[in-house]
């Protein structure tokens, strides 16, 4: 249960309809593996992220990045190993943990027939936000969509949908923010705006885990980079200097070895 002494956490918990949800400071993967029949998506992955950092998950296509995020979001359960939310060892995957997780996935996860405002209000209510109306207005202003709040989402461009989807993922101010390729389809201005937003979340003590192919957009954003190759975690190290160089340095060794790629 939530520590009563910290005022920020209690204030946030009160926001979730007066019901205490489990708050946590870190996300820990303990020897997690996930198989689909004979196909190994992830193999013996162990790492942890703490509050106030942005961790990037990098790797080629098919390395298991999306699976890792899906596991962190509790949508899939591990075939072996466990995932801990917080130091108290909360393996419990109930609604209390979900209240603190926000995920932006590949698909926009928005209803095309509803307007932007209706979409946000629906998800705000669903995630237990105390005042859905004002949260929705704030979210619309943040994503510069206020003028188009009453248009159905199917009329939006790809970039607008992505911005709205980000607001949807963050509407309940989650502790753990998971983003799957968030920079896809965003123009330069939006990418910078997203990066600043994530930095702001980091200052607020959120745990941010994202996957990306776009080294330019993520330049200078990541604190640490987790490198996945073929379902295995190569290393998780702080990023110093250019992200592309960091990636090439660490994966170059693996690509060069006699490891047969499947």
């Amino acid at each position, binding site marked *: 249960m939530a520590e009563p002494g910290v005022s920020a956490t209690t204030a946030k918990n009160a926001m979730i*309809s007066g019901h205490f949800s489990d708050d946590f400071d870190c996300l820990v993967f303990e020897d997690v593996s996930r198989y689909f029949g004979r196909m190994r998506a992830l193999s013996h992955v162990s790492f942890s992220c703490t509050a106030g950092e942005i961790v990037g998950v990098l790797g080629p296509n098919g390395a298991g990045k999306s699976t890792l995020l899906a596991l962190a979001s509790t949508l899939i359960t591990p075939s072996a190993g466990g995932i801990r939310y917080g130091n108290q060892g909360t393996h419990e995957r109930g609604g209390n943990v979900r209240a603190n997780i926000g995920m932006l*996935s590949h698909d926009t996860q928005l209803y095309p027939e509803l307007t932007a405002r209706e979409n946000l209000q629906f998800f705000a209510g*669903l995630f237990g936000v105390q005042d859905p109306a004002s949260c929705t207005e704030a979210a619309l202003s943040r994503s510069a969509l206020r003028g188009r709040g009453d248009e159905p989402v199917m009329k939006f461009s790809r970039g607008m949908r992505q911005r709205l989807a980000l607001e949807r993922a963050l509407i309940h101010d989650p502790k753990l923010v998971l983003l799957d390729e968030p920079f896809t389809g965003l123009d330069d201005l939006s990418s910078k705006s997203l990066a600043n937003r994530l930095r702001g979340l980091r200052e607020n003590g959120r745990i941010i885990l994202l996957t990306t192919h776009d080294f330019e957009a993520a330049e200078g954003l990541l604190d640490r980079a987790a490198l996945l190759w073929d379902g295995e975690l190569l290393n998780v190290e702080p990023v110093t200097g250019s992200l592309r160089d960091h990636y090439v340095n660490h994966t170059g060794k693996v690509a060069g070895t006699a490891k047969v790629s499947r």
Partner: protein
Amino acid sequence: MTATRFIRVAWLIVKKDLTIEARSRELVLTTLFFAVSCVLVFAFGFVRDQNPIGEAAAGILWIAIAFAGTLALGRAFERERYHDVLHALLLAPADRPAIYIGKLLAVICLLAVVEIIIVPLISLFFQTPIFRHPWLLGLLLACGTLGFASVGTLFAAMLVRARSRDVLLPVLLYPITIPVIIAGVRGTVLLLQPEVDVIMVRAWIGMLVFFDVVFITLSLWTFEPLMTD
């Protein structure tokens, strides 16, 4: 606390589905049209002396409901599968069975609209006095539709992530809902007789109520394990 959260989430989902439906009218119109076509096809299929058979009316009504219902269920969940919205719903903090209840109520509203049109139509085509006992008929239709939809909503939800889901939904649904069809058809036939055996009709309604209770409970119980991977 969790009870109000449950009801709130279910209500949000019903409202959302009805809003989408009111705006696009896709499901209502296509399902309604399909149900009417069904009735026509069966009316042409069962003929005696170049006229549709009056006794077939009860059976045709329930078959049309079953077929239209299967179509509506498939489309209702296709909406959640498109753009992967179902996963966003599953991430909500509320108990997952609330999603089931919300979708169930939305599907029932849709089928109610279809039935309100189909029943008078059948009375017209087959010249059957189907409205002599409107309350009993209404109760029979309500309990039967609820039974069919309760199993159908669960199966449609669990098949969202399966292959061949379009054909597997009817394959799984029809054997399980045979008791509902039997009860519905027998009850309706009894209501069409000149001398209505009210006790027997009540017995069929009783079985349907029992069916509804058992299968809604079972669905609520199994929804969470069936939706998690």
